[in-house]
């Protein structure tokens, strides 16, 4: 039977998911705050013992075998050794990995989200936008699907069957609208607003499948990152498909496919594997 999901139902049921990690919002706010200090980041991280332990563990792994022979237990030292940007990346990746794990997200779903996150980070460097914002957009771009799978597994499975049947021109959003009344981009947008994520992240989640996405770089980066993740077959899933790619989005972020992009592709492939190990749920 066709559902007609409403914004109210989406938000009400989202209350049954684990709490969205507030550190993500807080960290993104520090990026926009010129007065934010390393101390503020350390304080943020220090509030969550799980994330603190993971940051210290990764920092310890990074210095292992070096001349610095000590067991890192101090966040200030960890930040100074592995760098602020890396700590931010770890905090975002680990907190969203924990959230996904607690939300019972499938392994494939997490792998795909992480791969899009890494591709978005790398494209963000080309487009001169924040790689941290891009990572969050990539990690959360399909969050609407997680909600659908969790609360309406039967309908979600029906959509997968339609997609996997591989009918020519079969579009995931059309299939979702047929079973849910709305698509995962809409559901994801509602969730992102409810979690008070920045409007740029909400827009990226809502519009990443648009054939003509709005002219915002983060939306364009997320849109192209998903196509690139599938084209590079980063998750090696049979159902990976590239159906469309906005020329406007490519132009906006400055990607020219006729250039030698081997280094960019290699970097994305290798980093996706590396961060897959780094962010794996404990």
């Amino acid at each position: 039977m066709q559902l007609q999901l409403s914004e109210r139902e989406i938000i009400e049921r989202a209350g049954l998911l684990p709490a969205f990690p507030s550190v993500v919002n807080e960290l993104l706010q520090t990026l926009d705050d010129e007065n934010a200090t390393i101390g503020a980041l350390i304080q943020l991280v220090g509030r969550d013992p799980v994330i603190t332990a993971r940051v210290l563990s990764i920092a310890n792994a990074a210095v292992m075998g070096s001349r610095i022979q000590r067991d890192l237990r101090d966040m200030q030292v960890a930040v100074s050794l592995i760098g602020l940007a890396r700590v931010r990346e770890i905090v975002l990746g680990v907190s969203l990995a924990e959230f996904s794990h607690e939300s019972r997200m499938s392994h494939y779903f997490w792998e795909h989200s992480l791969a899009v996150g890494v591709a978005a980070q790398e494209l963000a460097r080309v487009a001169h936008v924040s790689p941290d914002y891009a990572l969050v957009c990539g990690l959360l771009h399909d969050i609407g699907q997680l909600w659908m799978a969790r609360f309406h597994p039967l309908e979600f499975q029906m959509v997968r069957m339609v997609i996997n049947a591989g009918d020519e021109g079969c579009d995931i959003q059309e299939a979702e609208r047929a079973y849910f009344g709305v698509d995962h981009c809409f559901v994801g947008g509602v969730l992102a607003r409810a979690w008070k994520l920045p409007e740029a992240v909400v827009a990226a989640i809502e519009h990443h499948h648009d054939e003509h996405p709005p002219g915002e770089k983060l939306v364009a980066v997320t849109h192209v990152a998903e196509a690139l993740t599938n084209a590079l077959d980063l998750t090696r899933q049979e159902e990976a498909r590239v159906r469309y790619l906005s020329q406007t989005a490519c132009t906006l972020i400055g990607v020219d496919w006729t250039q030698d992009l081997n280094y960019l592709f290699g970097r994305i492939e290798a980093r996706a594997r590396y961060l897959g190990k780094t962010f794996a749920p404990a």
Partner: protein
Amino acid sequence: MNKHLRYLPISDVVEGMVLGAPLALAEHGITNFTLPAGHELTETSIRQIAMRHGEFLCIVEDDPRSDEEREADLLRHKARLDRIFSQANLEHPALDGLYRAVLAYRSL
């Protein structure tokens, strides 16, 4: 023997591998560590790269495949790519460009 390039996460890199592209690591926008293409990696240089947060390396190595085997591998990659793009209109310049760029990468 033919050579081919591979991009590996730092965790998969071992002593004796050879850099296939120059390496430049930067911190705060300033390059503070460089190695030339052709550098044979040692335990020390791998540790130095890891310490400077290098996450991946481009490695060049002997390609033991025969011409026929390389051709067969490329055909296999192309078949997979064709499957991934089976519902895409390759007359669209952006899609065609992405398809060709990925195929070129798989031919390395």
